[in-house]
């Protein structure tokens, strides 16, 4: 994929000239806050929306030119729960199979396997409106898989699920890769999910990919722990002095009036830092020690926590989408 861009209404730049590659058989995760452009990217790749510009290829098929062939080899599990709730789970699955030209006998066999895999076999003949949120998510998964796609797009597969159900879904996803060798392209704004599940992660923010690599590679970018310190009267203190006094400190940034200190062995340097700051007349009101995680990687790269902007961005984004649709 090269230079993929989507501009809504000629004014809102949702995805900005991104280029990356996903390898066959891997679980690739797109991590970023809501409104970062994850879903837009997925929807461009699955032919649902038309890229403003850029080039993409899926298994050799060119996006925009061979959409029908692309549609044959991809499966989509969208963010919203979109199974028809006036039909039963089984009816939904069989209908989905017929859309992909899977014959009835094959579809039946596959449906049985997949339903068993996600523990939904017993509920298959119930109307979907009687399902719980977790059950509906699992049904969506089965529906996305019934035609045995080569690439499966999972858009926030565990959005709004409780911890146990989320762990279960992760297990299914891992199973899928193991048993069917499917390439999985997923989006998430859960750090833990990306860390646990993905072979490689692209961190996306404001429509741009800001980092790409394995979870380990990304975490290695941090070069240590992060200490977040809320402080008063910082004015007469030069933060550049800190690394000179304590050699473990790699970097000091001021983010929203907070000190963000990157350091090795945070447990040991933390008391020293507080001492020095107090000596210099800086009043420390609270501290937080953060161990390397993708959350910290995002913080390190953008200076923001992923969750802080999440609510705001998603509301803004939805308003924009609504406006766009009306036109």
């Amino acid at each position, binding site marked *: 994929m090269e230079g993929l861009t989507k501009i809504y209404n000629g004014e809102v730049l949702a995805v900005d000239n991104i280029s990356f590659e996903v390898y066959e058989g891997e679980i690739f995760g797109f991590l970023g806050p809501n409104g970062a452009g994850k879903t837009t990217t997925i929807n461009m790749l699955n*032919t*649902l929306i038309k890229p403003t510009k850029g080039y993409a290829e899926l298994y050799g098929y060119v996006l925009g030119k061979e959409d029908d062939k692309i*549609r044959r080899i*991809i499966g989509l599990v*969208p963010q919203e729960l*979109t199974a028809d709730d006036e*039909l039963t789970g089984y009816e939904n699955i069989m*209908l*989905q199979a017929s859309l992909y030209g899977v014959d009835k006998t094959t579809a039946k066999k596959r449906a049985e396997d997949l339903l068993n895999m996600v523990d939904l076999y017993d509920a298959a003949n119930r109307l979907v409106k009687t399902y719980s949120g977790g059950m509906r998510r699992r049904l969506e998964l089965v529906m996305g898989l019934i035609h045995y796609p080569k690439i499966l797009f999972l858009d926030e597969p565990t959005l709004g699920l409780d911890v146990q159900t989320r762990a279960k879904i992760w297990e299914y996803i891992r199973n899928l890769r193991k048993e069917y060798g499917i390439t999985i392209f997923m989006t998430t704004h859960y750090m833990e999910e990306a860390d646990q599940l993905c072979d490689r992660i692209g961190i996306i923010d404001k429509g741009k990919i800001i980092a790409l690599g394995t979870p380990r590679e990304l975490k290695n970018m941090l070069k240590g722990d992060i200490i977040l310190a809320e402080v008063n009267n910082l004015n007469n203190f030069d933060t550049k002095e800190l690394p000179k006094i304590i050699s473990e400190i790699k970097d000091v940034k001021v983010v929203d009036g907070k000190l963000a200190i990157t350091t090795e062995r945070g447990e040991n340097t933390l008391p020293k830092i507080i001492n020095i700051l107090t000596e210099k007349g800086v009043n420390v009101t609270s501290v937080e020690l953060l161990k390397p995680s993708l959350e910290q990687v995002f913080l390190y790269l953008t200076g923001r926590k992923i969750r802080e902007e999440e609510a705001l961005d998603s509301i803004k984004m939805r308003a924009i989408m609504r406006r766009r649709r*009306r036109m």
Partner: protein
Amino acid sequence: MSALASLTMRELKKWYRRRIAIIFTFITPLFWLALFGKSMNLYSLLKIPSNVPPQFVQFVQQAIDQIIIAAFGTKDYFTFLATGMFSVFILFSSMFSGMSLIFDRRLGYLSRLLVAPIRRETIFLSRVISSIIRSLLQFTALLIIAIALGLQLGDGFNIIHLASLYATLALLALAFSTLFIALSLKIEEHDTAIAITNLLNLPLMFASNSIFPKNQMPQWLQIIADINPLTHSNIIIRKLVIEASLDIPIKSLAYLLGIAILTTILGLYLSRKLLKHL
């Protein structure tokens, strides 16, 4: 099963499962039939006054009969109205055929269909076919009710007339459902669709020969009635049902056929164009 057949079945299944909603489809035409059709008894309104000399009663009665028959094609206004309501019923039941598409767009099911390797026209056609089937099944119930209420079939009405009646209504259903589904291809809110529907249903009904004959209308209204497909299907249906005749005016049949072909082509073209992406 092919994608078209499965998607059509989906619509029909959902319709069948909403039994309560089906009952409501009948309410409006039933009101017209039972309340309006039965209370508006023209024949008894024109009863011969008691002061008419007895030797003229027979002539006056004949004159009244001829006036009514000339206007309505039958002495029984209820039969005239019922045969007019058949087409109106098809209009009403086809009007909401685009609704499922609007809901599919809102609920995200449409995305599912759009990423599938199916022809865009399939999405459109499945709604058209299911809408026609639905309309004709509901019409069967209406026909039985109308006969029970006193609809008088013409002498010699047989299976061929009945089949032609269904074919005419199917053609009308095709014209209306393709039109209303095509209108719904890009609509996001169902309120918009309901507004369009409400804007069109009564004017279409009144500006036709469904309730009153066309020839007593003012000139300008006759012109509107002439381009209204309901008028032409009514002409054909009354010929078939009231006169039990297969002598259908070619003009009306050609007009209906032309409209249906036009709206179908328009719908297919628009679905191809508008359902390419979300």
